[in-house]
């Protein structure tokens, strides 16, 4: 942890220093992903069989959908991204993770917060603000946990040997500030004793939603992708100037999007958002083009490995965010507002973009951090196909169904029940997609769980052996001494195995 070290720390020591924090973060994230997807399916059951929860208040659509969405964002996406950030910062700094106990404590606090928040929503204590439904106790826990992890991440970044920042540093560091400020402000104003009166609550809610679902996920996802894509492809990132341009346009323009065009607020607010949305096309394209340029020509066989995940994620970044931006075009919003289209785009951003990139990153990081192979490598590859196919099957019917519903709603001669019934058949296909994604998430959970179990068993065995052979030197379970000269050779044996 000493920045005065002249030699860089060997990568496997860096990985080992990240092991426990990442296990807590990733393990919890995978669990919440499975639970969030399951709750999401339960929520959609209310549409397939409306009276299913007529006598059970906890699992109605209003409760389950809010809980599921929050689980996907706060339970899965944010902790997973934080874990990947810690590891990337440590690796780029070529130093061990700073203050390693802090993220462990923080991650546990975070998961407690998510648990408390989810149960509160199901019991009816949600705050009523979209994406901010966790009551004050839970949100304070989340905020504190994030601050702690951010401190450790910033310290790690501060101890870097090579003082020049790599583009991923910008994105991920900005993401740390972004969450703290947006989440803090929104909670301070909305989840408190004296919130502002009237529609301002909705405006602040929309500002937060945009800053989390669009900007924060973009910062985290692109930052992570820009680390792994060049690394796996074996080529440098195509252009640092381009990345800088993409970063600056994303943070300056992306944050203004969010106010729906038909909102009951003075005209300047939706107009400013439409302006921001128009300009946000630039960073979406720029970052997409840059990713494409980086991997163009790289001969990386895929077959469902992490490279596939991250590439799919970047394609989803461009597609999903272009659709998101299109919602803020005044003409389009007249058809698309208040339909399933919005839900489809959000899920594409959460699962198709952030989820895929985070999963790919987790599969890339875990074997290194645990110093062992994935226990179910074939399931990990199946995970990609389940996620990719499932996400598209989940999201695209929602988009199409939403457009159909919107067009029918515009015609006041069509009774409302008919207009909303047109979406129902799309919802059936969509729920099937959700099931596939859930199966993929189970693969992830299984891999992490069994890996943790194996590691713990290994530790147990080490303890037993050390106790038994405490007088014998050179115990079989000591880690190998690190040979830095061997680090010079480049080998990628993981991806070569089909």
């Amino acid at each position, binding site marked *: 942890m000493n920045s005065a070290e002249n030699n860089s720390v060997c990568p496997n020591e860096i990985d080992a220093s990240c092991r426990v924090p990442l296990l807590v973060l990733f393990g919890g994230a995978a669990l919440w992903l499975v639970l969030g997807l399951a709750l999401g399916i339960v929520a959609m059951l209310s*549409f397939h069989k*409306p*009276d299913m929860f*007529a*006598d059970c208040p906890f699992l*109605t*659509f*209003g*409760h389950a959908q*809010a809980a599921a969405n929050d689980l996907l964002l706060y339970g899965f996406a944010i902790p997973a991204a934080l874990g990947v950030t810690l590891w990337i910062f440590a690796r780029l700094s070529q130093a061990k993770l700073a203050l390693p106990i802090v993220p462990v404590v923080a991650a546990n606090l975070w998961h407690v917060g998510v648990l408390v928040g989810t149960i509160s929503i199901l019991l*009816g*204590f*949600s*705050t*009523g*603000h*979209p994406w901010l439904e966790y009551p004050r106790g839970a949100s304070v826990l989340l905020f504190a946990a994030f601050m702690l992890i951010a401190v450790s991440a*910033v310290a790690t970044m*501060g101890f870097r040997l090579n*003082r020049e*920042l790599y583009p991923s*540093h*910008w994105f991920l*560091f*900005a993401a740390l*500030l972004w969450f703290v*400020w*947006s989440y803090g402000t929104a909670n301070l104003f*909305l989840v408190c004793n004296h919130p502002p*009166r*009237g*529609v*301002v*609550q909705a*405006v*602040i809610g929309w*500002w937060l939603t945009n*800053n989390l679902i669009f900007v924060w996920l973009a910062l985290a996802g692109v930052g992570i992708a820009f680390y792994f894509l060049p690394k796996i492809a074996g080529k440098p990132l195509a252009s640092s100037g381009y990345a800088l341009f993409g970063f*600056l346009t994303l*943070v*300056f323009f992306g*944050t*203004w999007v*969010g106010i729906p065009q038909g*909102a*009951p*607020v*003075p005209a300047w*607010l939706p107009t*400013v958002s439409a302006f921001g949305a128009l300009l946000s096309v630039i960073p979406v394209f720029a970052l997409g083009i840059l990713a494409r340029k980086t991997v163009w020509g790289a001969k990386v066989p895929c077959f469902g490995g992490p490279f596939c995940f991250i590439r799919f994620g970047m394609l989803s970044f461009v597609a999903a965010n272009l659709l998101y931006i299109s919602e803020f075009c005044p003409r389009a919003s007249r058809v698309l507002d*208040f339909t*399933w289209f919005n839900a489809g785009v959000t899920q594409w951003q959460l699962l198709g973009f952030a989820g895929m990139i985070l999963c790919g990153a987790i599969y890339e990081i875990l074997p290194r951090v645990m110093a062992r192979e994935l226990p179910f490598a074939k399931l990990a590859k199946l995970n990609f196909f389940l996620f990719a196919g499932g996400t598209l099957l989940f999201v695209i019917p929602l988009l199409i169904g939403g457009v159909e*519903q919107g067009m029918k*709603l515009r*015609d*006041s001669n069509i009774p409302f*029940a008919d207009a*909303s*019934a047109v*979406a129902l058949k799309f919802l059936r296909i969509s729920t099937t997609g959700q099931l596939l994604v859930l199966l993929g998430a189970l693969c992830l959970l299984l891999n992490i769980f069994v890996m943790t179990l194996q590691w713990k068993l290994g530790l147990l065995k080490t303890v037993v052996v050390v106790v038994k052979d405490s007088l014998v030197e050179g115990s079989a379970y000591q880690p190998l001494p690190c040979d830095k000269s061997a680090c010079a050779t480049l080998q990628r044996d993981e991806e070569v195995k089909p």
Partner: protein
Amino acid sequence: MKTGFCVFLAAFVALGASWLGLVFGPLKQLGVATETKILQSDDKWPVQRTGDATLGLQVYRANGCAACHTEQIRQTGAANELSLVNLGVHQAADLKDFIASLLGTMPELMNFSNAVAGNLAGWDGKLPKVIYSGADDTVISLLGDKLKAVGVKTEARVVATGADIARMGWGVRQSVAADYLYDQPVQLGSLRAGPDLANIGVRSPDLNWQLQHLYAPKSITPNSSMPAFRYLFTVRAKVGGQSSPDALVLPKEFMPAGNLEVVPTAEAKQLAAYLVSLKNNAPLYEAPFTPITAAK
């Protein structure tokens, strides 16, 4: 960027700018709002809710009703309308000619001659007849005066238009910030899996209808996808064979069998009171329209 400080600065300025513009600005502009007056009246808007309705908003929030219902009406246009109400001594045919001559001779009206002529073409004489509907208000007063001078009674109205407003009962004008002054928390909603509720208190003002709809939506709309909220009600034995005054009156298929009745819990009553308090029918300065004073 070379240093962490530069990154921090860029992110800080970017997020700070949007915080100022989208959080602080609206707080200062809208967050200090107080009651406003209904147009051409001394009545205040919004109307304070009853105690039950205020508690009902919390029931609405707790059950996540905003996940399927919105409470905001959108408006895509507005029109100044001039309609003929009473022709006096004239006949439709010669009135058409008179108006055509006015359009041809008066320079101020020439720009609108196509619009007005288009409305009058094919008019069979039925009243009331809208002869102009557009953005200009001066033509309304000019044409109105000229017609009044020859004894024709006209009515000038401002109407709000839009797909939401065209749906009967959904609202007569767009929702504006003033409508949500007393809502804590504001439940605008973002998905219309169910119809918009901004004006449900005018559309379905009967508390019993609301309660019946909550208990068994299919008893009112057979192909409804709204779940039944039976947990907001108690099914209990009739006391002494008599229904209590609160008991719901339901169609036979939805009534519980035997000597049982369905009674709403306090939460159900509060929720129904809240729904009945949702009204969007007052003209305001920022959302003007001419109220229809004649009984429907």
